[in-house]
């Protein structure tokens, strides 16, 4: 991959020059009390966000948490109802076009033109950024290669698989060499292989210094990609930190999962393991025991005469953090 070189090649005529000083390094994205209301309903409830240059920042949260609403405000498409928002040091209300010229956006719902070919989708999109035809063509070839769609370039988008469409959307979002890439659930609905291939692409972009902001339901995705993340629920941040910090703060080292029969009432078993660990979560299909010594706790469970159908000791994940903070699971 030789994108860094061609980034410099891409020299389009400069009509407006944004003077960006070093103080920006502290906050490519800066929000205070950011709020979005739809009528009476508050979708985003006064959040504070700072994302530094080069950082990979994630919003983790269940359906309806307000992730997309936040992303659309950061993307300078949807005006905030209240609060301060600065992107790259600029005000979205006044400098929307100048900001968006430096953003790449992967929306939750694809906006590809399925009647056009793969290549045409990129060509037409580049024109929106005021790039010359020659510059767009060169960039298009490079990006199709980057997302491994070169051999589908002439095909219509319509029959492509979900993963291919997502890769095309990511390629499209890179046409302007964005400083910030906004990814709203980039891998939802993809099979594991497609997700890993997308993560690989995103990881490479991060290495090149692109600032990533993403939303996801998947804690493994957040753990893989994010330097820092917030757990979002009902329009607010329930917690903030690196994946490791969050786990250390809100969970234990290990988790013991106990499954009893399908017709058993797990609440009864919760009473029976009382006192073994500080915290027990009762899920419909299993019990979670939060412990620093999974094997020791397993032994203690059997000592009490309980006979679970299966036991599993695993490391804590962000899923456990989320459960602790919101009392709900991320993906039902």
């Amino acid at each position: 991959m030789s994108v860094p070189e061609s980034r410099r090649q891409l020299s389009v005529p400069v009509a407006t020059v944004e003077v960006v000083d070093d103080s920006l390094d502290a906050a490519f994205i800066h929000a205070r009390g950011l709020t979005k209301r739809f009528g009476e309903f508050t979708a985003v409830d006064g959040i504070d966000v700072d994302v530094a240059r080069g950082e990979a920042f994630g919003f983790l949260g269940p359906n309806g948490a307000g992730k997309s609403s936040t992303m659309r405000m950061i993307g300078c498409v949807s005006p905030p109802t209240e609060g301060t928002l600065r992107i790259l040091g600029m005000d979205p209300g006044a400098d929307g076009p100048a900001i968006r010229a430096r953003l790449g956006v992967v929306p939750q719902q694809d906006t590809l033109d399925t009647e056009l070919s793969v290549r045409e989708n990129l060509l037409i999109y580049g024109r929106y950024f005021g790039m010359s035809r020659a510059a767009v063509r060169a960039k298009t070839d490079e990006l199709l290669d980057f997302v491994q769609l070169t051999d589908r370039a002439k095909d219509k988008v319509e029959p492509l698989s979900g993963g291919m469409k997502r890769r095309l959307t990511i390629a499209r979002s890179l046409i302007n060499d964005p400083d910030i890439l906004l990814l709203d659930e980039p891998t939802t609905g993809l099979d594991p292989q497609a997700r890993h291939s997308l993560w690989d692409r995103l990881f490479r972009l991060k290495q090149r210094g692109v600032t990533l902001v993403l939303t996801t339901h998947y804690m493994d995705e957040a753990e893989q990609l994010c330097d820092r993340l917030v757990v979002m629920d009902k329009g607010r941040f329930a917690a903030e930190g690196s994946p490791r910090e969050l786990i250390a703060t809100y969970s234990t080292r290990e988790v013991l999962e106990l499954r009893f029969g399908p017709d058993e009432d797990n609440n009864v078993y919760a009473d029976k393991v009382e006192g073994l660990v500080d915290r027990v979560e009762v899920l419909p299909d299993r019990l979670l025991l939060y412990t620093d010594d999974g094997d020791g706790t397993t032994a203690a469970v059997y000592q009490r005469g309980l006979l679970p159908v299966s036991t599993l000791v695993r490391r804590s994940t962000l899923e456990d953090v989320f459960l602790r903070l919101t009392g709900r699971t991320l993906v039902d």
Partner: protein
Amino acid sequence: MQPDTTAVLRQRHVPGSLDRVGASFGFWAFQYRRTWRGTVVSSVLTPVLFLAAMGIGLGTLVDDGGRLDGAYLLFLAPGLLAATAMQTAGFESMYPVMGAIKWVRTYHAMLATPLGVSDILLGHLLWVVFRVTSSAAIYLAVIALFGAVASPMALLALPAATLCGMAYAAPIFAFSSGYEKPSGFAALERFVIVPMFLFSGTFFPVSQLPDVLQPVAYATPLWHGVELCRALVAGTQTLADALLHIGYLSLWIVAGVTAAMFFFRRRLESTG
């Protein structure tokens, strides 16, 4: 690989507002490459069929009555020019707009780029100007071939037809972006477009209508477009009348664009 931070904050090209409107227009032009043949064929066939059947066929009957000085074709052809501009404008302003919001989501794709809501709206409206003007130009050429053009002033009927078309396109853009369901289009077509087509002076003078309906007909943009085109093609247009019609049609355009801007913002800034 070294982080490429030097490139991150380099100078950026930000397209100015003319370029942005141009890029929006450019999308529709790009897309038209797939469908232009069909539209050209129908732009030629429609006037030929209409003028042959109504102008000549029906006209023979009408002219025998002697009420229009034996020139029903001369009466009808320019009226149809305006009426067809209205229909082309309606066609281009209904499903394409709703599709770009709801189905293909073209507008949403554009909004993630430097293009803003007003760039998107104006670029698309400009595209409709192009479509209305090009099909009206074909129409005018067909009329000339039928020998129904009396004066070089007829060339001015082209911008007049465009004005008439846009007096429909702009408010219909507002309708298509404000109304959520495509079922509204059938109603618009049936209860607004078709009645105007029939009763706004295209086929017979509005003075033939019952007294109560005449003010309604005079209030339609189409009647003003028809009058303007008819007098220009005949070479009898006076400046005062022309200004009145142009002013009235412009009013509809300004009001329509204002309303469309409002509904576009409401739809595109909240959803997506």
